[in-house]
C-alpha cells in the first residue's frame, strides 16, 4: 500500500525549466511546492571535471536512462511500433535541470506568425493554402500578449543579443535596464568569430539579414532580479550534453532552483518517478510516484498538479492516468496526443575550405549567426508548396574529435584506413556547416498514444510515436538546402556537401533534434486543444501541463524561450487559480 505524504499546495512533476520556473515563482509568493524528479539531483559540483566527450556526448551521461523508459516508434499506423532501444534522433534529458542543464542556450522567441499561424495564413493566402491533413491552429495567445513573459524569462536567464537584429527577427521592445538605458536584451551579444563573419558577409551580399544568435551563454557577468549572479561564458566549447562549470549557461540548476530553495518552501525529491495523476470528476487530488532507488510507492497529495516533464512523459502521464480525451487520427476527435511535431533539421550544407583553418575546437552552444529571411512567413509563400520555413545559421558550438570527422565529398574517398585518416586530420579544422532548422507543422497522422505491447520497468505502457515526414516537410527541406548551398557558394567553399535535398522517411536511428513538441496543445477551444493559454487543462482545472507539449506546431526556432515564457504565464495562472478557482479563461 502506497504511503501518503503530507499534502502540499502544488506538486510539480519534472524539475527542468518549466518546473523550475513555476517552483521559483510560486515559492516566492509563499506557496508550498514539491518537485518530483525521476533522475538525480544536481548542483554545480556535478559540472566540474566535465570536459569529457566520451562520457557526456557519446554515452549520454545527462540523458534519460533508456533501460527504464523509452518511446516506441512507427512511421505510420500500418507498422508495428518498436522501442527506441538506443539513442538516435533525440536525447531527452533526465535529472534536476532536465534538458535545461544540457542545452546549448540558443534562445530565440517564436515569431508573431507562429502564434496566429492559421488566421494569418488564411488572411494572406486563403484557406485553400492549408493542406487538408494539416491541422494548424492558433495558439490562443498572440505574440504581443506573450511578450511580457518572454521578457521575464530573458531577464531571469540573462539572455544576450544584438540590439539591432534587422527586420526578420521577431520584434522586441527596449525594456531591460542597463546602466540607465533601456535595451532590447539584458546583456550584449556573443563575440563574432571568423566563421560567423564569413556567413554574415555572404548573406548580406545576397540581400539577406543576418544577426547574432540570441544566447543564454552569459556574455558578461550578470545579476538578475532574484539576486542570482553568474559569470561570463569562456567559449570553452562544452555546452550541448554538458553542464556549465562556470554557471555561465542559464540552467534551472543555477538560476530558478536556488531561488526556490532559498524560500524554504520548495522540496526537490529526486529519484521519484510519477506513475499516475489521481483524479475524480475533473479534479486531481495528487500523484502516485515510486522511489526509483528503493522501489517504494508513495502518494503525494496537492491542491494543484503541474506536469512539467518532457513532451513524451507529459502525454504519457495523462494517458496512463486516463485524464483528458485521447486523440484519434481516424475521427480526428480527442486531444491528448494530438499535433505531435518535431523539426526539419537535415537541410544544410557542409563547407570545406582548402585554404582556411578555423579554431572550431573553441565555441559556445549559442555562438553563431542566423538568417530568418526564410523563416515563419517572412517571405511570400504564394509560389511554394509549403507553409512556414526555417532558420539558416552557422553555429560554432565547439567541434569535438570523436563525433566530428568530416571529409569532403570527393569521389572514391574511403570511410576508414590510411587515406581516410589523413583526410579527417586535414579537413577537421577546414570544415564548417550551414544548418537549417525548419518548422514542423502538424499532420493528422503524426500523433502520440500508448503502446499496446511495451511497458516501462513498472509495467506502465510506453508512449508510442507515430510520425513521418510529409510533403510539407520534404518541400521545406529541399528549399532550405538549396538556400544553404547558395550561401555556401557565396562563401567560396572549395567543396560543398548539400544535405536534405531529398528528405526520406523519418528515421529514429539518426540524431536530428531534441525539439519534440505537442501532444497536450494549447488553444481557445476544448474540442481542438487540451489546455488553455495558461496551460490549464480544460478537463481538470487544477491540472496544468507545461512545456513544449503545449505547442500546436513547432517553429523554425529553438523552443526554450517559448517554453520559458509559457511557464511564466502558467505560474501566474496557477496563482490566480489558487486564489479564485475555476477556469481561467
Amino acid at each position: 500500500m502506497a504511503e501518503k505524504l503530507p499534502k502540499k499546495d502544488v506538486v510539480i512533476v519534472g524539475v527542468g525549466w518549466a518546473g523550475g520556473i513555476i517552483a521559483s515563482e510560486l515559492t516566492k509568493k509563499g506557496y508550498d511546492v514539491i518537485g518530483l524528479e525521476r533522475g538525480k539531483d544536481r548542483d554545480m559540483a556535478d559540472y566540474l571535471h566535465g570536459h569529457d566527450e566520451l562520457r557526456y556526448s557519446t554515452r549520454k551521461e545527462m540523458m534519460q536512462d533508456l533501460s527504464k523508459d523509452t518511446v516506441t516508434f512507427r512511421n505510420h499506423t500500418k507498422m508495428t511500433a518498436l522501442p527506441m532501444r538506443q539513442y538516435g534522433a533525440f536525447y531527452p534529458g533526465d535529472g534536476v535541470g532536465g534538458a535545461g542543464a544540457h542545452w546549448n542556450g540558443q534562445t530565440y522567441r517564436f515569431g508573431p506568425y507562429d502564434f496566429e499561424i492559421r488566421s494569418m495564413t488564411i488572411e494572406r493566402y486563403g484557406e485553400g493554402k492549408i493542406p487538408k491533413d494539416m491541422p494548424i491552429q492558433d495558439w490562443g495567445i498572440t505574440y504581443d500578449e506573450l511578450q511580457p513573459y518572454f521578457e521575464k524569462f530573458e531577464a531571469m536567464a540573462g539572455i544576450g543579443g544584438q540590439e539591432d537584429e534587422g527586420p526578420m527577427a521577431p520584434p522586441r521592445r527596449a525594456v531591460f535596464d542597463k546602466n540607465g538605458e533601456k535595451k532590447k536584451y539584458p546583456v550584449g551579444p556573443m563575440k563574432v568569430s571568423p566563421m560567423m563573419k564569413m556567413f554574415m558577409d555572404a548573406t548580406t551580399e545576397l540581400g539577406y539579414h543576418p544577426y547574432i544568435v540570441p544566447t543564454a551563454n552569459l556574455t558578461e557577468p550578470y545579476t538578475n532580479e532574484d539576486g542570482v549572479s553568474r559569470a561570463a561564458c569562456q567559449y570553452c566549447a562544452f555546452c550541448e550534453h554538458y553542464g556549465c562549470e562556470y554557471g555561465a549557461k542559464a540552467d534551472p540548476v543555477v538560476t530558478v532552483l536556488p531561488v526556490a530553495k532559498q524560500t524554504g518552501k520548495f522540496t526537490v525529491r529526486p529519484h521519484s518517478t510519477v506513475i499516475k495523476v489521481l483524479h475524480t470528476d475533473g479534479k486531481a487530488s495528487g500523484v502516485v510516484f515510486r522511489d526509483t532507488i528503493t522501489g517504494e510507492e508513495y502518494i503525494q497529495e496537492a491542491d494543484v498538479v503541474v506536469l512539467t516533464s518532457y513532451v513524451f512523459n507529459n502525454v504519457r502521464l495523462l494517458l496512463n492516468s486516463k485524464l483528458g480525451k485521447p486523440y484519434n487520427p481516424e475521427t480526428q476527435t480527442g486531444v491528448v496526443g494530438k499535433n505531435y511535431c518535431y523539426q526539419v533539421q537535415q537541410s544544410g550544407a557542409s563547407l570545406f575550405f582548402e585554404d582556411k583553418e578555423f579554431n572550431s575546437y573553441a565555441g559556445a552552444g549559442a555562438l553563431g549567426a542566423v538568417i530568418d529571411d526564410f523563416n515563419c512567413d517572412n517571405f511570400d509563400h504564394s509560389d511554394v508548396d509549403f507553409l512556414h520555413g526555417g532558420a539558416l545559421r552557422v553555429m560554432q558550438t565547439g567541434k569535438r574529435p570523436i563525433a566530428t570527422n568530416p571529409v569532403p565529398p570527393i569521389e572514391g574517398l574511403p570511410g576508414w584506413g590510411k587515406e581516410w585518416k589523413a583526410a579527417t586530420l586535414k579537413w577537421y579544422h577546414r570544415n564548417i556547416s550551414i544548418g537549417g532548422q525548419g518548422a514542423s507543422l502538424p499532420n493528422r497522422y503524426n500523433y502520440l498514444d500508448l503502446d499496446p505491447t511495451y511497458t516501462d520497468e513498472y509495467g506502465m505502457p510506453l508512449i508510442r510515436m507515430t510520425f513521418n515526414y510529409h510533403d510539407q516537410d520534404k518541400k521545406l527541406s529541399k528549399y532550405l538546402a538549396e538556400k544553404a548551398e547558395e550561401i555556401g557558394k557565396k562563401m567560396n567553399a572549395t567543396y560543398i556537401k548539400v544535405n536534405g535535398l531529398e528528405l526520406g522517411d523519418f528515421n529514429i536511428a539518426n540524431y536530428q533534434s531534441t525539439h519534440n513538441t505537442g501532444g497536450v496543445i494549447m488553444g481557445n477551444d476544448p474540442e481542438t486543444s487540451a489546455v488553455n493559454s495558461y496551460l490549464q487543462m480544460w478537463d481538470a482545472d487544477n491540472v496544468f501541463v507545461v512545456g513544449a507539449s503545449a505547442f500546436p506546431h513547432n517553429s523554425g526556432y529553438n523552443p526554450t524561450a517559448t517554453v520559458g515564457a509559457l511557464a511564466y504565464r502558467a505560474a501566474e495562472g496557477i496563482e490566480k487559480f489558487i486564489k479564485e478557482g475555476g477556469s481561467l479563461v
Partner: protein
Amino acid sequence: MSENKETFTEKKSTRRNFLKNSGLTLGGIVLGGAVTSLVVKNNDGETTVADSHSSHGAETSNFNRALMFFNIEQFLTVEAAAEQIFPKDENGPGAKELLVGYYIDHQLAGGFGSNAKEFRQGPFLKGEPTQGNQSAILNKDLFTMGVAALDAEAFKLAEKKFYELEEEKQIELLQKFEADEVALNGATSKQFFNLLKKLTIEGVYADPLYGGNANLEGWKMKRYPGSQMSYVNIIEKDEFVEMEPKSLSDHQ
C-alpha cells in the same frame, strides 16, 4: 597436444615470441603477472618485444594497460583490426600505439559492453530500417563473434590468425565485413564492423583516462587541444591557434 602447439607456433614468430615471453608455455602453469610484455609488429613486418611498462617516455608504469575482457589472442586480432581502421602514417601513430585495443577491451568489460543504458525488454522484432537497432545481441557478444569471424576468415584465407595476416589481406577481410559478406550468428558483419569503427575512433580521441589516446597523441595529431578552461582570447582570431592539449587529469 604440446607437439601440435609446437609445430603451430614454429611458423609464427609473433605467436612464439608472445608465448615465450608471456610464460604461457611453462607446462600450462600461468605465473602471476605473466603478461608483462607484448609483441609489437610494426608496418615493415619487423617484430619486436616491447616492455609494457616503459613505452611512454616519462611515464614509468601504466597499470591500465592490461586486459579485463579479451583473451590475448582476441586482443591481438582486435588491435590489428583497429590499426587498419586508424593506421599509423606520416601524421602520427595508429590505433595500436594509441592503445585503442585496451580502450575497446575496457569498454566491453563495462556498462557499454552490456548495453546497460539501452531498452532491453522483448519482444525483439526485426523492424524497419527507420526503427533503429532492434538486435537482442549485446555489444560484448557482437564484438566477440566478430573477432572470432575475423580469425575464422583469416584461417580460411591463409590458415592464420587475423593479426598474422599481411596488411593487404587484413584490409581485404575488413572490406568484406564492411560489405556484409560474412554471416554472424543473428547479426551482420557490417554491424560488427560499425561497432569496431565506432570504438576505434572513440579509443583514438577519448580522454586518456579511458585507456586509449595514449600520451594525448590522438589529440596532438588532430591539433585538438582537449580540455581547456577558456578560449575567450582566441575566439575572434583569424589565424589558427595551436596549443598543447590538456586532459582531464590536468584538472584534478
